[in-house]
């Protein structure tokens, strides 16, 4: 009953490409279930969980979980290079890394948490992810080795390439 109002309004107001009736088969989702599914971190830090970690702690996690694919200190052997490339974006062969290219530090946490490690995603604790994020920021010279990353500190990190994106939309 509660949901019927917006549907009626939309039937008169929406002028999208499709004017179709809905059989209304969606099942209301429990807020706790939604919270369990919602792992997104916004660029403002929205969604960041409790916990914290430093680069020192992250180095140990990296050695176990990341080194095989990303090489010592994120040098990209075998896969994506994570560190360096600063000032290279105008070169004939730019090196796009977290440090040289990524505009938001929050994206590091979001991406590690949803996708990494490649063979065992969603197995790291939030503390470990904060620590790994801190380690990668430290290797890129963006934060100090003993600087803890948490829900407040991470979105406050200003990435070097932050202001070099031009929005083509809207």
């Amino acid at each position, binding site marked *: 009953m*509660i*949901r019927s*109002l*917006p*549907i009626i309004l*939309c039937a008169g107001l*929406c002028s*999208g*490409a*499709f004017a*179709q*009736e*809905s*059989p*209304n*088969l*969606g*099942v*209301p*989702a429990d*807020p706790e279930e*939604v919270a369990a*599914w*919602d*792992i*997104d*971190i*916004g*660029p403002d830090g929205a969604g960041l969980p409790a916990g914290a970690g430093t680069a020192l702690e992250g180095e140990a996690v990296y050695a176990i979980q990341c080194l*095989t*694919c990303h090489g010592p200190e994120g040098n990209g052997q*075998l*896969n994506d290079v994570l560190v360096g490339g600063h000032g290279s*974006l*105008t070169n*004939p062969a*730019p090196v*796009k890394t*977290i440090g040289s*290219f*990524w*505009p*938001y530090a*929050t*994206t590091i946490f*979001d*991406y590690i948490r*949803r*996708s990494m490690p*490649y063979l065992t*995603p*969603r197995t790291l604790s939030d503390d470990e992810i904060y620590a790994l994020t801190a380690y990668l920021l430290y290797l890129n010279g963006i934060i100090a080795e003993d600087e803890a990353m948490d829900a407040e500190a991470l979105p406050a990190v200003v990435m070097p390439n932050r202001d*070099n*994106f*031009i*929005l*083509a*939309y*809207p």
Partner: protein
Amino acid sequence: MQGAFMANRKSASGRKPRNLEQVAGNGLLHRRLFLTRGAAALGAGSLGLLTAARAQELPPWMRIPGAPMTGHGRRARYEEHIQRLTTSAPGTDGSGGSRTPLEALEGMITPSGLHFERHHSGVPDIDPDAHRLLIHGLVDQALFFDMDALSRYPMVSRIQFIECSGNSRLTGLAPEPVSGTCGELHGLVSCSEWTGVPLSILLDEAGLDPSAHWILAEGADAAAMTRSVPLAKAMDDALLAIYQNGERLRPENGYPVRLFLPGYEGNMSVKWLRRIKVTAAPMMTREETSKYTDLLPDGRSLMFTFPMDVKSVITSPSPGLELAGPGLYQISGMAWSGLGRVARVEVSADGGTSWAEAALTEPVLDKAVTRFRMAWRWNGAPAVIMSRAVDETGAVQPARDAIIAAKGVNFAYHYNGIQAWRVGADGQVVNIHV
């Protein structure tokens, strides 16, 4: 120049060619050839190959009954070698892509089994009975939909392409032309009939908050890949696609349900769709920041370059498809635009000195691959053939030089330059830059 190549040149079969009207340099012939008597005129050359003696022999497959009916058909065994070309990141076998062998295909539809792939953590094996889609965020009521529910919603079908925005950069942005087949160089584009539920219906059912301007789409693969999509696109023509070319989606194309965003870069049409979060602003995911942004010469990058621009490529002749000798050939290719319909395609056989309009094969559909064809009498001399598409918005496929002059060579995405093939005197076709 007009008619210079018409003068009594003998074809490979030794017969005089018909008096076909040349419309551009180096043997391009009027497209009327395809609209009226094209098939007969082009096919005439092969009729002499059958000798009287061979024509009287019964082939073995006419002497015994054929194979029985089957529950699910497969390709002729002589075609099984037509395969996607796969590449994956080091140490993985499911993080990368596969390319459609464009040079082996005709028409506008890509067979589902040859549709290009791009995965970030392999193809998940999803049980449709256990799969649910969650819509939440800035909505009046967060809702779950299972596949049974989605299947009861009104559906639409549309024939439209998907192209990875990294397509063609392998050769287009390389300093020297890269050796490869048409599919190896340009095969991150495919076209299918997609059937599914307009996303707008489900968003309306959940009830949009006035502050909503974007959605975040998440896949149910092991990478849980996410992209932010403008709400305007989601409400306009976004589909939750469930069927591809009449059958349920192939696993590698998003089974059991994927987002389909007509004309937008392929990465945004999130496969294995499990969650849509309605948001006020883009979430700045890894895919839309560190990838799929276009690095310019001054070090800045374009972000949110969504539509795929107008583009075309000649699929035949193309590298690997050699010409048997001088004579009449059909130039065949595909054109598409993420901005609308293809308005026309021009073909050159003299390296861009002169151009003629190709015949477009119906149907010509919005944001679909359009097949174009051109009759060509090859005189046996080295030639450079190329195609240039124009869409209904007036956008013209640019030359490679023009793109590089404007955007450099590091932008990596949305390269849509004109492709040139050089046909050698030996009939071999190679990729070149012009």
